[in-house]
């Protein structure tokens, strides 16, 4: 059952990822990316990361993708124009990518023992309680630093989007 669920969501993620790369219109790519993120949230849940799965849906599929879609709509971004500058890249790139992925998959199968498998419910430390405890004890300094980072990002976004740079 676990493997079946993994295969379903992995297939959704890969198909949406391929669609993201192949689509020429950015809004289609954005919707594919939402599909990838939703499928990954389900996989996080299978791995026992319930807090991260919720955060993935809220932060990534919610906030960040809304920002992307908003910018695409605002700029009225259209389909990419075709250029023939890099036709050799299309011919050589795809077989090379597949070969590279085959090699990586083979390496991973060799390095990670095949006896270990993911059983849903075996890892119970992914709750909000455990993550909050780690976040506010061991990782307190990085956590506080990210708040400064977010503040800088907000200020930077406001300054950049406020008016044209002369």
């Amino acid at each position, binding site marked *: 059952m676990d493997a079946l669920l993994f295969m379903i969501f992995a297939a959704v993620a*890969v198909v949406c990822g391929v669609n*993201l790369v192949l689509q*020429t219109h950015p809004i289609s790519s954005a919707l594919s990316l939402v599909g990838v993120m939703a499928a990954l949230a389900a996989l996080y849940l299978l791995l026992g990361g319930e807090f*991260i799965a919720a955060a993935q849906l809220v932060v990534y599929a919610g906030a960040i993708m809304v920002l992307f879609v908003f910018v695409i709509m605002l700029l009225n971004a259209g389909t990419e124009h075709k250029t023939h500058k890099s036709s050799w890249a299309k011919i050589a790139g795809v077989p090379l990518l597949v070969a590279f992925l085959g090699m990586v998959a083979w390496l991973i199968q060799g390095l*990670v023992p095949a006896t270990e498998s993911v059983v849903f419910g075996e890892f119970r430390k992914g709750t909000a309680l455990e993550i909050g405890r780690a976040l506010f004890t061991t990782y307190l300094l990085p956590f506080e630093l990210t708040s400064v980072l977010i503040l800088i990002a907000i200020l930077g976004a406001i300054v950049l989007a406020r008016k044209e740079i002369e």
Partner: protein
Amino acid sequence: MPPLPFPAAAPLSWYLTLSAVLFALGVAGFLFRRNIITVFMSIELMLNAVNLSFITFSYKLKQVDGHIFSFFVMVVAAAEAAVGLAIILTVFKNRQTLEIDELSSLKN
């Protein structure tokens, strides 16, 4: 019910392979696409793939640290998206284009 042609529980290596596949797709999108917004979305895809790796290793080591790391990756990705999209807006206001091939004023 007939026996399934695959193991009942997915091995860890499947998750890591999926992570590698998604990362490679992100790299491919980053290299092949010419729309600056799609390039940016490919970067987000790569960040997501790395997050899956983190969570998988967190499961293997039975520790919560991988979850914290991917949480920080999400925070940084949110900040990056806000600033990056503001930069894209500014570039579009000044140059009226989203094609990365035409944004080459720093070349030479």
